[in-house]
């Protein structure tokens, strides 16, 4: 078993319930993660699946410390980053990259594609000069299958699938150790989804970064991921390698999730058993 890039122990997270915010005093909080423990093997793609409200997105955001956990250890490459403040986290940010779900909101509308990919390269000193940053950005564009001429374009001039590729280029250009993909194909139609996932698999083979792939679509996870974590209402229901989880699911909820997927072949009983 490859050694773990992430070792998570008893992770707790709660967020303020803004709906019931009083004028003064503390805002009541909702518990989101209820003591999770698991590992993310280095070099593998780990799927995190669950329905809406299962806490999978919050878990992803906590892994790369966009959210502060209430308790528990987040051991990243041998170092506990659960309690680090922004200052201490900054040097690690290069190795903790994220690709967002909504391609329309994750790219700054008033920046060119070249600037969106190039700026982080300068920030983390991957590129020494803006000229070098521009060249690296152009390379990144070609890696994700976009023509170099897109560097001068603005996000609103691109399609959903093309924007998602820019999001991927921004992340992989930094050659990070870990990338979080948060429902990155949920907004795309079938053919763009197939192209983006194939691209992701090629990039992972060439650059072997570790990835956590958050999704509500088990069929996609089955094709893409080496391991799968099934979540429900803030708890881990099952954590196994992908083949075992689909062929011999231990937990009833995993079975329910799998069997709820309509396979593209004609059969009579599926609707009746709903």
């Amino acid at each position, binding site marked *: 078993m490859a050694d773990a890039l992430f070792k998570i122990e008893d992770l707790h997270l709660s967020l303020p319930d803004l709906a019931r915010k009083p004028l003064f005093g503390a805002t009541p909080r909702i518990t989101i993660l209820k003591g999770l423990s698991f590992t993310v093997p280095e070099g593998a793609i780990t799927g995190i699946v669950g*329905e*809406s409200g299962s806490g999978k997105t919050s878990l992803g955001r906590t892994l790369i410390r966009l959210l502060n956990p209430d308790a528990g250890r987040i051991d990243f490459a041998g170092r506990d980053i659960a309690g680090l403040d922004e200052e201490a986290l900054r040097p690690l940010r290069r190795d903790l990259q994220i690709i967002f779900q909504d391609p329309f909101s994750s790219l700054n509308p008033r920046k060119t594609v070249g600037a969106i990919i190039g700026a982080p390269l300068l920030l983390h000193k991957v590129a020494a000069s803006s000229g070098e940053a521009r060249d690296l950005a152009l390379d990144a564009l070609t890696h994700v299958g976009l023509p170099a001429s897109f560097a001068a374009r603005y996000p609103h001039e691109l399609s959903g699938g093309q924007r998602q590729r820019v999001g991927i280029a921004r992340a992989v250009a930094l050659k990070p150790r870990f990338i979080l993909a948060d429902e990155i194909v949920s907004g795309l*139609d*079938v*053919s763009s*989804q*197939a*192209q983006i*996932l*194939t691209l992701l698999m090629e990039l992972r083979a060439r650059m072997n970064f570790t990835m956590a792939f958050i999704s*509500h*679509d*088990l*069929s*996609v996870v*089955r*094709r*893409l991921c080496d391991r799968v974590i099934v979540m429900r209402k803030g708890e881990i229901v099952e954590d196994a390698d992908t083949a075992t989880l*689909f062929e011999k699911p231990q937990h009833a909820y995993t079975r*329910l*999730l*799998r069997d*709820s*997927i*309509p*396979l*593209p*072949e*004609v*059969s009579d009983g*599926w*609707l*009746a058993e*709903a």
Partner: protein
Amino acid sequence: MTEAYLDISDLSVALQHSGDRLLRGVSLAVKPGEVHALVGESGAGKSMIARAVFGILPKAVTILEGQVTIEGADLNGMSQAARRLFIGKRAAFIPQDPLTALNPSKRIADQISDRLIHILGMPKAKAHARAATLLEEVKIADPERVMRLYPHELSGGMRQRVLIAAAFAGEPRLIVADEPTTALDVTVQRQILALIAGMQARHGTALLFITHNLGVVAKLCQTASVLYAGKVVEQTGVRQLFADPQHAYTRALMAATPRYDRPEESLKPASPELMGELAREVAETDTLWAKERAHG
């Protein structure tokens, strides 16, 4: 061959200012009690067909040619108001996103009974009673309480059930459902699909089911039309479609669809050659169509 309840023949629709065709001679028919799938990816024009049936095309889009008939009556011949009233009495629509398809400042009861009262002329008390029975039929607990609630007080799944109840409220002979379960979790989707199938069978309604999910087509529908760039590229029975798909696009769509039982064969992106072939086919239909209109 029993008479088709909804019959669209050779429908072409285009953007007014550029003349680009969004629908290219679409023909399809749905018989009473039949569930017909309209399959295609976003941008293929699926929703445009639904809007054409109800006569609510956006202002910037015009009908170039083609007929839409319901119950044998040609809708193009009617005035916009008469057409809306005619359809309002016979057909219903189930929208995609339950979070935006209910009026946020109206109670659930009003949103189910409004068609009964104002279009079908049913007295208010009877309409509200009918609304309550419908909520039971869509398996919503405590219908009396739910009737007085506002949409933001219900879950996504419950709101979709309310929309289904509103659709079946006027005993429609035809229902057009536009991706009614795409916005729902997969476990809730299965219950909603079963609910729609059950009510459709019980009421013998003709159902035009719009989706991009081939699994839903296989489990729910009897016949299917595959749409690419506004053109029906394949139209057949569902068993036939999955057993022996004829058109290259249908095969490409099946290859791209993820499957957990055969992962290695799924998620195959379409090859550039295929994309070029499809583009040529669309261009040919347009030049052919332009030539015919020049002589016609």
